[in-house]
């Protein structure tokens, strides 16, 4: 092992975030038509993980109020649909919890309609449902949302195309390298097989990691059913440089 470029030379000892390319969809995914004009055609250029990459925005409690995790409150009445609790942990790929990180959620209402001028699906808007929530993971990485199960909705990607019911999740983690936007799906959805966004993830086991599991233990009797969804971000390897990582057993 060479010691010509040691971290001590500049006094910087930085974490290194492990890649997991196999889990993620390709930017060019022919079944998903909107990707055709929106993916780079040149190869991506490798960006070293220097200070800008191993740090990241620590957006905190000033962005989240006490009821932001509950999408069913804040209006004059109750939203229509099936009330659900979605909870889980934010972890990294080393199995460590990611604490105190901002989680953003947005979704369609129970009729499959977004509160957005661009949504032309002629399903009703719900005056008591906006479809946006925020939460912070706690010091163990745990988070919890209360919301309404979203409906499926049609889109024009292919003949008789419908999106499976899903929640959008946005996470920052603790480093620029960990930023993740994903979607949570519901177990047993009959629309998985024809959805090019879900199926853009090539590895069937990776697709399973986007499907929540029904969670009877967290269900509140006579009030809400519950789903568990753990989210795994890239982990920081214990050693900062790849040539040192290879020395680990």
């Amino acid at each position, binding site marked *: 092992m060479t010691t010509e470029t040691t971290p001590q030379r*500049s006094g*910087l000892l930085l974490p290194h975030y492990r890649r997991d390319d196999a889990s993620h969809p390709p*930017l060019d995914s022919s079944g*998903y038509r909107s990707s055709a*004009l929106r993916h780079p055609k040149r190869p991506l250029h490798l960006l070293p993980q220097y200070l800008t990459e191993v740090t990241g925005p620590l957006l905190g409690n000033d962005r989240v109020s006490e009821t932001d995790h509950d999408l069913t409150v804040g209006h004059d009445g109750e939203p229509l649909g099936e009330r659900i609790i979605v909870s889980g942990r934010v972890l990294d790929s080393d199995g460590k919890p990611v604490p105190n990180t901002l989680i953003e959620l947005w979704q369609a209402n129970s009729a499959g309609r977004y509160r957005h001028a*661009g949504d032309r699906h002629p399903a009703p808007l719900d005056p008591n449902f906006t479809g946006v929530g925020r939460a912070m993971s706690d010091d163990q990485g745990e988070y919890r949302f209360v919301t309404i199960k979203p409906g499926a909705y049609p889109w024009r990607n292919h003949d008789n195309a419908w999106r499976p019911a899903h929640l959008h999740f946005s996470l920052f983690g603790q480093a620029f390298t960990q930023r993740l936007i994903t979607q949570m799906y519901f177990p047993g959805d009959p629309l998985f097989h024809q959805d090019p966004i879900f199926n853009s993830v090539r590895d069937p086991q990776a697709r399973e*990691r986007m499907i929540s599991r029904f969670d009877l233990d967290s269900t509140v009797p006579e009030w809400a059913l519950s789903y568990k969804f753990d989210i795994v971000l890239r982990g920081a390897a214990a050693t900062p440089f790849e040539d040192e990582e290879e020395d680990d057993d």
Partner: protein
Amino acid sequence: MAESAELTTPSQTVGPFYALPDGLLWTDGPEVVAAGTPGALTVRGTVFDGNGDPVPDAVIEIWHADERGRFSHPADPRGESAAFEGFGRCGTDPEGGFWFRTVKPGPLPTPDGRTEAPHLNVTVLARGMLNRLVTRVYFPDEADANDADPVLSSVDLDRRGTLVARAEPDGVRFDIRLQGDAETVFFEL
């Protein structure tokens, strides 16, 4: 060790509807620093697709150090900056435009003793994009630092210009081209 590691949750598109009321966008999102901050500049740009058409439903996020090259973050081993959040978020308008008000960051040391020129890290999200794109903004008045930058100097000379913003009276312009002859250099992390 690698066997015990968890596999990550896959990325999915941000979709077209992130701009729900009080949703993924924040009203102060493009304002990394307050109006009137000494040294404040505006970073403006347009996102173009493979037809050269503007992308009206993208989200651009920036992340960068403060003017001294410091991050308000525990992974910066040199000590935290005072109160600089360093994060901005802007949805594109119907013409594909975005903007940020911020300050030019300072240069940064690398672990192997080199120096990075002032830069902004950029995340591009949009409908049709199954994973985020990452690029960087470098500054046009930093020619020497840019030449010595370990990232920029590793990019083919004929494409390096896509990462350097153009000077404007109150800041810089940085257009993002997802495809085409002048396709922006995007990075894998």
